[in-house]
């Protein structure tokens, strides 16, 4: 396995917040190119903290993160942030420009895409999420599902190697949820999805990693992991009422 460069490699990653709370206590994770992996865990398990390490927004007190063989360091930050596209949980945190098109253009301009190519990037990204008709609207005037898709477009426009999604299904109506799932499956990109939504993880990710108290406690095919009711119960997770996989 090691002879192929991993899309993402996390080695013994530790991180403590300034108040002393130890959010990551030695995380190990390897994601191969093209894989879709769900990161599951209860509230406060360290999932979002892990996400913020993948693009160098936070830096571990110990351990290492590599993206496609490039270690996350201060001098590689720009390259890392282009390679790792993070879609945050609340689209209102992500969409801050006055129009959809300007927001989608924000990333490519920061990453030095030639100005002549920016409109094409914006068009392609918006068309990939089916939002090209809304390019000149304010993100504020879009529905929750539309905002989520635009947030995804803002990251796709940067052409990332790996897509990291933080709770992509939260606050979405069932139809928007399904549309987003179909969209994500159609992208064919390496994907890491942080979620509480276990059926969504099963639908999108063949493999799941369970994190609790800052360490990986299980790493299995999603179906096997979700069928282990005792394991889920031990880490404050459970399938929604009416679901059974065992």
């Amino acid at each position, binding site marked *: 396995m090691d002879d192929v460069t991993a899309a993402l490699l996390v080695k013994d990653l530790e991180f403590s917040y300034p108040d002393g709370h130890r959010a990551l206590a030695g995380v190990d994770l390897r994601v191969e190119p093209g894989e879709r992996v769900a990161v599951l865990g209860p509230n406060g398990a360290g999932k979002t903290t892990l996400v913020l390490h993948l693009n160098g927004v936070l830096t571990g007190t110990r351990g290492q993160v590599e993206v496609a063989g490039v270690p996350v360091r201060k001098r590689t930050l720009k390259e890392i942030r282009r390679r790792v596209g993070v879609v945050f949980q609340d689209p209102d945190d992500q*969409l801050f420009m006055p129009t959809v098109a300007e927001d989608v253009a924000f990333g490519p301009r920061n990453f030095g895409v030639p100005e002549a190519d920016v409109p094409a990037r914006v068009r392609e990204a918006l068309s990939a999420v089916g939002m090209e008709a809304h390019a000149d609207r304010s993100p504020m005037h879009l529905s929750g599902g539309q905002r989520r898709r635009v947030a995804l477009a803002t990251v796709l426009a940067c052409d990332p190697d790996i897509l990291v999604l933080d709770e992509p299904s939260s606050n979405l109506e069932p139809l928007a949820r399904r549309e987003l799932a179909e969209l994500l499956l159609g992208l064919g990109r390496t994907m890491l999805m942080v979620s509480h939504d276990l059926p969504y993880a099963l639908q999108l990710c063949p493999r799941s990693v369970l994190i609790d108290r800052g360490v990986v406690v299980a790493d299995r095919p999603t179906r096997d992991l979700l069928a282990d009711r005792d394991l889920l119960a031990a880490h404050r997770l459970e399938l929604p009422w009416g679901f059974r996989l065992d």
Partner: protein
Amino acid sequence: MSATVLHRPGDSPVHRLPPEVKVVGAFAAVLCVVATPREAFWAFGLHLVVLLAVWAVVRVPLGWYARRALIEVPFVLLAFVLPFTGGAPRTDVLGVSVSVDGALAGWNILAKGTLGVLVSLTLAATTHPRDLVVGLQRLRAPRLLTTIASLMLRYAEVIAAEARRMRTARVCRGHDPRFLWQAAATARGIGVLFLRSYERGERVHLAMLARGWTGAMPVPPSPGAGPWRWLAGVTPALVTALVCGTALWTT
């Protein structure tokens, strides 16, 4: 392009001017109005004629400006008080004793304030807030200021919507503040809103960093306004400057 409280979308030649030209024109016009000596009454009349000429091109109803100019009312009240509170020399107008200096000071505030507000409203009516920020960026205004303005434009609506939701939630639980001493819950709500906005600011910053933010907002390219559009845009300001200069010369 959508309307806002101060912006009135349109297709007039003034609407179509590049925003940086309009910002410079409006700023210069306001400076000239302020620099006009208060005794040169005729000059203020000419300034108003220039403004009316611009309005004729803009084709925005006068009532639209009038309603928004009400923001000036507190200053107008002050302007009307000054003639009665000013010192000597005094003169009689319709049997009422008024201070000459006070009357001139009141006129000064009224004329310059009103013209300043009307020029600003004309700029706002013909330029979308987003384009105003773009104009300031092209004029090389400090990046920090344009970034703050641009974020403020985006998040003012988000925060206002959040405040409305919080108020609705309070009202649904029987909150009905009618007197000042019952406003504690509203005050706490404002405090919570501040904290939430602060936290949101941190999350927005993280999301910006994740997309390669380095501290400067990328500026969309502009083809440049060109000398003729600059000339057309600042002509009203040039006439105002001419009037101001003549007034300074002759007063």
